[in-house]
């Protein structure tokens, strides 16, 4: 009596599998070109980043930290980067940065226009909002499944999974940002007869920028959080080292790679946050 009757069974998984199969076989060309696109972008990113000498990167981070926050922060970030280098994870860090950066850029390119549309069309918002809710409650490794199904193993599915996981905050905060631009300001703009584009570019976006930047920060941090998980399906870099360390129960290696991820996350978080602050304008 306590058992749920087996005759009533719902094989949701089967349907999804059929759907994915249909997608990947009948629309092979589409996924191939997406894969090629992501890969090309990622490789370009990697070659640019690894082309820059290490001391230049450290120099840039120092200057950015100094300008945006102060000398002490600049020195602090420099110290953290040097530590990563001394621990022997410099190249892994660059790999991780290029994956994260690629995923973040794709998220922003998709997420910001999406957020703007949601802010302007109530009906779209009604659909997007519950989807985002669902996405944010899902554990991160769930995204690995569709990534593998669509793209197999490797860097591309890793970037794909990371992108999907990192997408919700920037959409959400863009919508919020646009919706909370002061009504009188929008009407003031309207009263001069701008086209929708002019209103968006000259008033709404600049006004929304601080909040959108908060979304960019969150999205970046979400992408960082995917570093270890996505290495399970083939992302190289710091996450992969952590994964190996876990498999080998190599505490020392786990610590070194782990602390490198933490340092990187701190630097990225602080820098994107203070870029956001630069956009803030008081009333």
């Amino acid at each position, binding site marked *: 009596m306590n058992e749920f009757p087996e005759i009533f069974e719902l094989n949701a998984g089967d349907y999804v599998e059929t759907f994915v199969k249909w997608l990947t076989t009948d629309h092979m060309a589409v996924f191939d070109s997406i894969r090629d696109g992501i890969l090309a972008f990622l490789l370009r990113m990697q070659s640019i980043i690894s082309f820059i000498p290490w001391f230049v990167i450290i120099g840039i981070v120092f200057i950015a930290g100094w300008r945006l926050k102060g000398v002490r922060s600049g020195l602090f970030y420099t110290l953290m980067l040097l530590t990563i280098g001394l621990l022997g994870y410099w190249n892994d860090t660059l790999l991780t940065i290029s994956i994260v950066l690629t995923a973040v850029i794709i998220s922003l390119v998709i997420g910001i226009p999406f957020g703007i549309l949601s802010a302007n069309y109530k009906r779209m918002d009604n659909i997007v909002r519950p989807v985002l809710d669902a996405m944010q409650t899902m554990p991160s490794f769930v995204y690995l499944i569709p990534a593998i199904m669509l793209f197999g193993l490797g860097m591309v599915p890793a970037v794909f999974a990371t992108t999907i996981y990192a997408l919700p905050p920037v959409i959400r905060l863009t919508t919020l940002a646009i919706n909370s631009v002061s009504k009188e300001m929008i009407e*003031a703009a309207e009263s001069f007869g701008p086209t929708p584009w002019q209103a968006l570019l000259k008033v709404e976006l600049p006004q929304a920028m601080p909040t959108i930047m908060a979304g960019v920060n969150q999205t970046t941090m979400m992408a960082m959080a995917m570093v270890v998980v996505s290495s399970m399906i083939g992302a190289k870099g710091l996450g992969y080292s952590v994964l190996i360390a876990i498999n080998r129960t190599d505490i020392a290696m786990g610590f070194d790679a782990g602390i490198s991820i933490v340092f990187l996350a701190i630097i990225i978080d602080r820098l994107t946050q203070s870029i956001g602050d630069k956009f803030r*304008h008081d009333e």
Partner: protein
Amino acid sequence: MEKIRVENLTKIFGKHPQKALEELEKGKKRDEILKETHHTVGIGNVSFSVHEGETFVIMGLSGSGKSTLIRCLNLLNKPTAGKIFVDDENILDYDKKALRQFRQTKIAMVFQHFGLFSHRSVLENVEFGLEIKKMDKEERVTKSLEMLKAVGLEGWEYHKVSALSGGMKQRVGLARALANEPEIILMDEPFSALDPLIRRDMHTELLDLQAKLKKTIIFITHDVNEAFKLGDRIAVLKDGEMVQIGTPEEILDNPADEYITNFIEDIDRSRVLRAENIMRKRSLKIGKNTAAKIALEILNDSDYEHGFITDRHDNRILGVVDADDLLLAIKGKLPIAEVMHTDFVSVSEDAYVKEVLEIAAATKYPVAVVNGEGEYVGRIQRAALLKALV
């Protein structure tokens, strides 16, 4: 010339305005419609017209529909029914493009809480409208600088707007509207967020600017003094309906109903009424060559104690006499000119009663009123002064 004509304009807020409109047309009142259909009649069946170059003030209590009405004029509110003609074109027939054109060239708005763009500098705020019109950078900067100068904000061009005081912010709002060279300016309680002293400055500023620019201004206020100070004509809104339209004097003299009477109770009439509104026209004047005896008869025949002596040719006032003076002249066989007093005072016919009051306090004679050419046009008895003020 007529610039704007509004015909039976109605704006109803709610999900199904057309339904509520039917109720309104059946003659239902605002309250009933709100209770029965949960729709708010912002304004109902409002008609009026505004002349070119006049300052048309709309006043009314909070919630009377002032903002609703003014926002219909540039279609920030989409009217539920009615027509709005600007230069004989019904702006409700405009498509999106024509509406943008209309807003870019003909009409600008000044907002109660300024509506300035906090991400732009003072100068960039003023440039905004010109930028929308795609004027090139150099030209629009020149023009904006000029405008900022006109409103007295020289030296503040590159500041953030957040650094400005309320009065200065609204000057930016005004400059931004003027830079576009609109024919019509809408001002929705532009000065109500300012403190009284600053507000007084802004009034002067606006009157000065308007004397030069002669724009058609629609000005909203709930401050009666402001309305009477600035308005060439005043319209009074109550519960979304227009209860009276007229010049300040007309409204003061014949308040259409109790609502307006209450409204104008706290107005300082001495700042609104002018000498010509309270004077006795062409009352009792005596030519300087009139015989004293005849003059005395004329004076006794009137209900005045004093008579002004004028020159018959140019109608200038020469002096003032009372009955005793004339008796003296009769006795001594003197011409009137010998006995009249010349220490009378005169005011221009467009002087405010406030000025007349100050002058009247210093003389024992009635105040003579003269026109622009210096001709005698009437007099103000001190009793009339008091009456005008209650």
